[in-house]
């Protein structure tokens, strides 16, 4: 069985399993919150149109970018390896004729796909409900695809990093929390290139609003607060590099590590 076939099979196995566990439903519920918010805003502000709608979209993006995908990636990322070790189901997987890295890559891909579906549905519903007034305008769809692309890259980068954390540390969730909600938020107050040492910086640089352009209300400032963006191309490359590097590290570690359930 070639390595790529093995990855595809592991992807199939965990794609199926991921949907089954109760946790997926809990996160889907969490994803419902922005949709409800969008509906309520539509009802309350249906008379006024224009920039106000896009401002609220900004506020939603804060939820998605700095909370939802981080929580998803933290949970699913750390559980790529930690879950199998903790529930001791690891021995079912590594006594199969497939290379160990295939388990990490296959499972990561399955969970990334699951996360992407959750985010796409939630973002899609809330975005289009919020901007229902001018559905005809093609630019609307372009911005949506761009948002989705940014969140997708975010899922991959955060997911890979947390997968690596889950393979290295025993207490991955706590460290992940500190990184995801501590370091990533604090970084924006640091000057100069220190911002380059966080994932959220590259994601923000890809957002469709030029920072010093028109300041469209509180929402935008919130996101692009004191951002010194790197060029979109460089950001995408950086995100891709982060994803690849941390996944490779996770695979290598998983291959050489011996998991000892307490003797």
């Amino acid at each position, binding site marked *: 069985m070639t390595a790529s076939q093995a990855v595809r099979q592991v992807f199939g196995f965990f794609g199926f*399993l991921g949907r089954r566990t109760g946790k997926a439903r809990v996160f889907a519920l969490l994803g419902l919150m922005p949709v409800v918010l969008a509906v309520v805003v539509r009802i309350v502000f249906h008379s006024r149109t224009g920039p106000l709608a896009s401002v609220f979209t900004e506020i939603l993006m804060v939820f998605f970018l700095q909370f939802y995908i981080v929580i998803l990636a933290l949970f699913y990322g750390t559980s790529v390896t930690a879950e199998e070790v903790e529930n001791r189901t690891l*021995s079912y997987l*590594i006594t199969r004729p497939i290379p160990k890295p295939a388990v990490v890559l296959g499972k990561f891909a399955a969970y990334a796909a699951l996360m992407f579906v959750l985010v796409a549905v939630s973002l899609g519903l809330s975005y289009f409900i919020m901007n229902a007034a001018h559905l005809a305008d093609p630019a609307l769809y372009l911005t949506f695809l761009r948002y989705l692309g940014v969140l997708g890259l975010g899922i991959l980068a955060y997911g890979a990093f947390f997968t690596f954390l889950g393979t290295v540390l025993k207490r991955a969730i706590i460290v992940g929390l500190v990184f995801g909600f501590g370091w990533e938020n604090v970084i924006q107050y640091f000057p100069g290139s220190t911002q380059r040492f966080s994932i959220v910086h590259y994601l923000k640089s890809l957002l469709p609003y030029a920072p010093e352009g028109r300041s469209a209300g509180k929402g935008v400032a919130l996101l692009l607060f004191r951002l010194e963006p790197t060029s979109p191309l460089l950001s995408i490359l950086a995100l891709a590099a982060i994803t690849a590097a941390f996944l490779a590290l996770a695979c290598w570690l998983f291959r050489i590590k011996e998991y000892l359930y307490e003797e």
Partner: protein
Amino acid sequence: MSVVIAAANLSKWYGNVLGLNDVTLELEEGITGLLGPNGAGKSTFMKLITGQMKPAIGTVTVRGRRVWNNPEIFQGLGFCPEHDVFYEDVTGWEFLTGLLRFYGYAKSEIAERAARALAVVDLTEDKDRLIRGYSRGMRQRIKFAQAIAHDPDILILDEPLSGLDPLGKRKLIRLIKEFKNQGRTVLVSSHVLPEIEALTTRIVLIHQGKILAQGDIPFIRELIEAHPHQISVRSSDPRALAARFVGDRSIQKMTFGPDGQTLVVETHKRDEFFGRLTGVVLEAGLEVEEISSPDDNLQSVFEYLVGK
């Protein structure tokens, strides 16, 4: 009988905890019982054979091929983990077909193999129920099914009978024996010695990381010179029987059982004793109710070799 699993000067420890200490061993077809006190290195040995751990010194090979990070040996090897752990939110069918994905079978072959494995462990009617709802016996049997579904010729079982009720044990013992009768190799580890005795007479005894004994139980018992054999004879007049044997030099010790009917004799020369016993009993006109050898079982072999 070719060598299937071989270990050469195999040693393993983690931190300062000793796992295995210079173990050299060869396992052939048929069922071999692996036993030893807690922390003797039994589970370390199991993990080394199933590639969950890397040998520190020496090698362990299955059909001549190294085990660590060498996945294709699992094409022909099935493993039953000790812990009662599963993917709880899937049905028996999904569990088997899911794990069968990794052998490169076509979809139809996966379904056919899963059905056959379920039939062997007779869980066919429960195949669409979630494993979460399975009883302990059913979980143990589905675990056995996932180990034999890809038709391996080596089966490694870690405490397969633990937690099963007597009927469940009988059923699984029969399955394991049927598997062996197809000329395959089975390595079973267990704490409960009567379970090992029900499966095989061939054992490997590990203690403090070393192989203490290997071979057939009666053969090992013979080799243990240090401890004389015990023979218990329950008869109408044990004292008369004892009086007749007192002069016999080969008898080391005689004790009378609490029930006042049993005479327990300890001797190195069992042959000689049994030779004379029938004659003596008839000559003395005694009524004999029972003759047995209380220490001719695995428990006492274990006690001698491992005991304090």
